[in-house]
């Protein structure tokens, strides 16, 4: 299933640069721990995102490494009430 993401070229449509797609950021080990500590929770309580999600694939291409399940992705989005709202999603298969 897990197709290898193609490197983003100019010819290929880039999801991440679409204005309706919010910014996705891959968290490192330290940041992950901070998030879990801040919300006093574990990864299984976080919202989920598929590894096959185009944004994850795109991040994977950018990072040049495989994003394994269990990694956390931080998403910034525009919010009607708060202006900017962020959410965390844990990668699942």
């Amino acid at each position, binding site marked *: 299933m897990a197709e290898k993401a193609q490197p983003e070229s100019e010819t290929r449509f880039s999801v991440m640069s679409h204005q309706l797609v919010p910014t996705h950021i891959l968290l490192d080990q330290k940041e992950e721990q901070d998030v879990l500590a*801040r*919300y*006093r*929770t*574990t*990864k*299984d*309580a*976080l*919202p*989920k995102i598929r590894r096959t999600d185009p944004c994850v694939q795109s991040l994977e291409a950018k990072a040049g490494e495989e994003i394994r*399940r*269990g990694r956390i992705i931080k998403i910034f989005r525009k*919010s*009607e*009430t*708060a*202006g900017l*709202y*962020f*959410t*965390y999603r*844990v*990668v*699942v*298969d």
Partner: protein
Amino acid sequence: MIFGIRKRIKAIKFAFLSPNEVRAMSATKIITADTYDDDGFPIEMGLMDPRLGVVEPGLRCKTCGRKVDECPGHFGHIDLAMPVIHVGYVKEMKRLLKSTCRQCGRLLHKPIEIPDAEGLEDVTEAPPEAAAGEGDDEMAIPVFREDERDTAQVRVCPHCGADQVKITLDKPTSFREGGHKLTPKEVRERLERIPEEDLRPLGINPDVVRPEWMVLTALPVPPVTVRPSITLESGDRSEDDLTHKLVDVLRINQRLRENRDAGAPQLIVEDLWELLQYHVTTYFDNQTSGIPPARHRSGRPLKTLAQRLKGKEGRFRSNLSGKRVNFSARTVISPDPLLSINEVGIPMEVAMELTIPIRVTPYNTEVVKGMVLRGPKNYPGVNYVIRPDGRRIKVTDKNAQNLSETLETGFIVERHLVDQDIVLFNRQPSLHRMSIMAHEVKVMPQKTFRLNLSVCPPYNADFDGDEMNLHALQSEEARAEAKILMRVQEHILSPRFGGPVIGAIHDHITGSFMLTHRDQRFDRDEALFLLSFIGTERDLPRPAGKDQSGKPFWTGKQIASTVIPRDLSIEYKASVCAGCEVCAREKCDEETGYDAYTVIENGVLKCGVIDEKGIGAFKGKILDKIVRDRGPDEGRVFIDNITKLSIGTIMLRGFTTGISDEDIPPEARRQIDDVLQKARQDVEDRVEAFNQGLLQQMPGRSVEETLEVEVMKVLGRARDQAGNLAGKYLGLENSAVIMAKSGARGSMLNLSQMAGCIGQQAVRGERIHRGYEGRTLPHFRRRDLGADASGFVSSSYKSGLRPTEFFFHCMGGREGLVDTAVRTSRSGYMQRRLINALEDLKVTYDGSVRNTSGTIIQFAYGEDGIDPSRSVRGEAVDVDDIIRDVLGVEVLEDEEKAGFRYGEYEADMTSTQDEFETEDEGGDEDFGGD
């Protein structure tokens, strides 16, 4: 996670009972249809066999040896002489029969459609024992579900080559293959032939289910505890409906066996077999379509298994999702403007029936003893005394004296409700949290619950026969929680739009308008009369001045100011504001006579009126500010006081309205008729132009549409002009106008429809076209597109409608009614599903929204973490207000520019509110509901 170990449901498995399981779990085989012998003892192997459990107190169960309430009851079973189809599974059986070969039982799949290796792997593999690790989510194993449509066209079995015949279901329980009827036995044989490996693709797990079990060979007999018999006063036994049905099954089963064994003619056996099928079918569901329901001797249909579970009165909806509760009361509601919004008036009868448990302590022994001594019939008394060993003793006049003397610390006494007790008050439908609020008890004479009119909007209550429920809280914790979280005053500001949902309505607004409008003067007696409504601890302010005769007078604004908090300052345009192009602001009174610019400075009403925009439910700005800045206590006091003052004013000055309020001078009538006649002519001209093809087409519209749009515009304008003409003669000296302009009730549109012209009636947003061929009614010529022929009503409600107009008005009115009926039922269902989906979510202390398993739904509530009921128009901080407070400079609110966020909601709110009210009230009379 947060609270330690939790158990999680990993899977739920559904399976059938196999005949072997039925027999294995059975305490006894049931063979005889007789229940009791002549001495009244249950017959062994009958339906009341003592091994099925105990229902009579004192006896012990023959199976488990336990007593009543300890023995759960035990199943028995009936061995059916011939197999019988289970009605609940006919659909499933039909699917299986259609998808498999009549000869070899294999799946009827064209080879090409047999799922490929990968798909098969997915379904045949046992679910992998998922290693539960972090971030591990278990995806559902894709179940390949065979669709009978794929196999229905297959004529020849791809496995054995047997020809297939189309199978149809003859409702409710017989299958037909071509012309031949399949007996349950044949059905069972076919199902038996389906090999295990073909079951998974059919959506059945062969580890737990065999399809032939859907055809019953053994019938479980539920324990007697499920179907207890009742002994009537006459000493006769009356059996449960289920028992009756089982008797039928047994009787026919017996006859069938005898006839079959005796080698009776096939026809007789088949008839009996079918009868057995009927009884077993109705035993499961007595409302199976296609067969007559089994009836009691009296003609009442029997309540069998499905009837026990199904529907509103079924086990699920009335015993599991909702239950009857103790310590509750229900009666009609009626208004009492002198109660506080926090209070509820309850009848003495209710107060003496509902009780609150009080623990006897050294500090209250004497008081409680006194209450017990009064007994259950003298208020405030006691209905029950609970001893420390848990024994409940009913207090009677006889034992009251005795009980009172034996009372000691540690006893619990159930005393009558008294004033100030906290109770929950509820009106259905409970659509939002304000539908159940906590009130303080006030015991009163008469037999209705009494409530303050200001709490009608959140309950959506009126007094045309509405009933409400009341619950007496039974624990100290519950009372504390209710008082802190659920008290009415804590709900003045709505969590939906941040504005007040509790506030002045109707006469409150009229009254406060009359009190504060322009320069109302009251003499000493009148001023005292008004102030007496809000208590006697208040001093009469200094008189505002003296009239010609030298008598001192007080102004309405002055009296209203006595209930406004001392340091409150606010400025806004009142509801009566005419929306002048340039606002005269403080000069509004002199220039327009409306007195519509309200200024309150340090608790003194300087100018302007206090009307709906100031204190009304949904709109009251003063109310909003007081509650927001000073908290619910002051908010409650303000609502209580200002509404009482209003009631006082309206009593003092008197207020009435009648149809004569819509009288307009003949001169105005003539002008209106003129306008309407001109409009009619205008329409006529346009129709003429249209007929001659001279009408200028609008871009993007057809000629017909253009005509419609223009005609609507012309007639709309005419209606408005008629309304304005009528309105010119309806000034603020007119009661109906006062109500409309102050926001108390009704609108200027309502008035102009009564006095001037009702206007165009519409169905589906268009003029009325439907009806006869080419015309709406036989009164008109074909193809008449004029105003009168298409539903324009030029009459007023007061003058009365012409027959054709009346008919059109009914058409428009009906659409409205149907609309609301459809909308309410649909939105109700939508709301229920939404609530079911969201009911376990809560905002945790860190501001995130989580469900009961701790899964995070939202990282900050509402994305901004703000409670809308504490926000100012959606913002956490009201900067303008702070500037005003700190610098003393008014930051003029530009309502249009700022969008005035909750203004949008309030408009929305009141419009739906009005729709519901007016239309519901009209309809309710017809149906006799409330």
